[in-house]
């Protein structure tokens, strides 16, 4: 069987074009709030991206069931960023140019966020991300780029403060080789030294290695009082499993999204005992979080994690902003209302049910979110308080709260 090449090429071109045109025709519909969901569904961030994507869908459905925004529905368009800036940019272009979305949400990897941001800025639409690279704070985005996650620069101060308060004099770092881990590695030592500590070693590890024994041993070699872990849950499970099976001991500290329930289940309560977890707060106690968690766990039988909470906040803020703009979904209109609905002063709200009425009536609200108070500073960063926890018997036990006023981002 041989195919005539010309026939083959013609068929392929025709088929592809038909799909392109067909896709476009399917969206010549009524005006509504169109949100481009650009999370990683494959690649290194797939676990978080899938969770976020689900949360966006759940909240959009909830808001639409309640009548939508001034009667018009929220429409979600999902593209897989593949944890790859190349795919992210192509996805963003499609969302912006074809689906004509009014905002982009959900970019997770700092590399993807930094590649996609110029596309959003050029299209003059808001872009909400969950990335932690310090470069995002200073990115020239004409106030279109927002992040609900904390910058590594900020959390480094928190780690340093926490370590100091717990009496640790020496620390080592075991960090992932990506913008988040490297950002932590760059930000933490100076702050820790300012707090009177000494860094005994900084070990960078790559994902997808067969074994991390040597990296773990290197990190523990200087016998540090505490080891700062800058990775994610998936590689965290692998690293900690090896660490535990090396039987070397040591105290670990790291971010909440690395040490979530999946992590604890993955390595078992015994191995997780005593880990110090630093996480954004308020979180678990806010009504927004309770709503988000209820929504998520009913559908997916799983707790809403930090990323799901941020996704909830992104969509809620954009929906409220559109409502506050009296249904005007243009990027500039949304941008103008983002801080109006999420920053103080105003009536504190935590759900669409609470907020829709007041916003519609022209009242100023202050949405307190599921992932933080989502009060954005002039760089578009959310200021978050932090909670310090210790894992005891497989659960996070709150040790102390560190307010953002105590944290210096210098």
């Amino acid at each position, binding site marked *: 069987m*041989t195919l005539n090449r010309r026939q083959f090429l013609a068929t*392929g071109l025709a088929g592809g074009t038909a799909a392109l045109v067909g896709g476009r025709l399917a969206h010549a519909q009524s005006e509504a709030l169109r949100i481009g969901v650009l999370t990683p569904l494959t690649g290194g961030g797939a676990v978080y991206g899938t969770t976020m994507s689900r949360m966006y869908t759940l909240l959009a459905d909830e808001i639409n069931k309640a009548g939508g925004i001034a009667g018009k529905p929220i429409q979600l368009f999902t593209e897989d960023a593949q944890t790859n800036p190349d795919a992210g940019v192509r996805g963003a272009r499609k969302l912006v140019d074809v689906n004509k979305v009014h905002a982009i949400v959900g970019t997770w990897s700092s590399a993807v966020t930094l590649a996609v941001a110029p596309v959003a800025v050029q299209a003059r639409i808001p872009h909400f991300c969950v990335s932690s690279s310090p470069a995002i704070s200073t*990115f020239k985005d004409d106030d279109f780029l927002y992040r609900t996650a904390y910058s590594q620069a900020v959390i480094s101060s928190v780690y340093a403060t926490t370590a100091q308060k717990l009496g640790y004099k020496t620390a080592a770092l075991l960090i992932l080789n990506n913008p988040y881990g490297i950002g932590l590695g760059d930000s933490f030592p100076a702050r820790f030294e300012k707090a009177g500590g000494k860094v005994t070693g900084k070990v960078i590890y790559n994902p997808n290695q067969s074994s991390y024994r040597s990296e773990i041993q290197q990190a523990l070699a200087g016998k540090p009082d505490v080891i700062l872990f800058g990775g994610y849950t998936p590689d965290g499970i692998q690293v900690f499993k090896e660490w535990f099976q090396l039987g070397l001991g040591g105290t670990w500290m790291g971010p909440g999204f690395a040490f979530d329930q999946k992590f604890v289940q993955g390595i078992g309560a015994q191995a997780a005992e005593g880990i110090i977890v630093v996480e954004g707060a308020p979180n678990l106690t806010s009504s927004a979080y309770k709503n988000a968690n209820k929504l998520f766990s009913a559908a997916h039988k799983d707790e809403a994690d930090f990323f799901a909470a941020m996704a909830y906040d992104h969509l809620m803020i954009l929906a409220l902003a559109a409502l506050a703009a009296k249904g005007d979904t243009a990027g500039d209109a949304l941008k103008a209302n983002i801080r109006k609905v999420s920053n103080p002063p105003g009536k504190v709200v935590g759900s669409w049910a609470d907020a829709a009425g007041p916003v519609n009536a022209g009242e100023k609200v202050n949405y307190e979110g599921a992932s933080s108070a989502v009060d954005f500073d002039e760089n578009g960063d959310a200021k978050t308080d932090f909670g310090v926890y210790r894992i005891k018997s497989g659960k996070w036990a709150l040790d102390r709260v560190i307010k953002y006023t105590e944290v210096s981002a210098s």
Partner: protein
Amino acid sequence: MTDYLIALATIIGIQVLLTLGLTLHYGITGLVNFGHVAFYALGAYASALLTLAGVPFMVAMGAGVVLAVAASLLVGTATLRLREDYFAILTLGFSELLRLLLLNVRDLTRGALGIPGIPRPWRAVSGVPDHVAYLGLVLAAVAIAFVLSEILARSPLGRTLRAIRDDDQAAMALGKDVLRFRLTALGWGAALAAVAGSLWAHYVTYVVPDQFTPEITFYTWMAMIIGGPGSMRGAVWGTAVLFVVLEGTRFAKDVMPGLDAPRLAALRQIVIGLGLIVLTVYLRKLGGRTRPRVAPAHVRT
């Protein structure tokens, strides 16, 4: 919609340069290059770093070309005498080694943080929107590359390369310095890939090592196979078809809600894999070799 088509055309244009380069390598000369993305990466990073340091765009692109060609000569001299599968694996390994270096020599490349804010080649082009002007630049590059490649393919050099591809023993017997010719082909293809890399970097304005994985190399192989490995025109057509189909499946997802996006993405890659297999076997035989190579019992040095 037009904006999207312009973006798509720009990306296809950049990819065509990669396919033209690979066609010179494999279609014309029979070099099984599985590390093509390395030259792409070198072009992109060199151009990005130099323009950010104030070097003019064309000079920076030129430097990227020189770097890629130098790398190709280095790799080629070390590996071109080996049999095809070893060459393939080594070039694959080389491209991964380069990616590792880009990831870890952070002082130079900023590693995993990537290089943001890469400037466009101009401040503004009067009267023309920026992305249209950029498409113009890419199309100009493709046109020049196409003409040069056609000329090369039809020249005596091209004939010699094809002869080497078909039967390098015979070519050697006729007194041709096979290694030197292969290195020439490798260099030309690397140069095209470097130009593509530079155009890519200035288009997305952000480069990071994760953009330069073997996936790109194999997409290029797919494009080349679709269009027919020995033909420059085929390189253009094949690339266009591949990317239109790939982008088309993106839309299929919107109208086919049954499967979720990650599954559809995985399905797309499975189709690529199947396509590679089916097309390799059933479309006009790969490379137009006139007789099958008999694998030697021992590696030829």
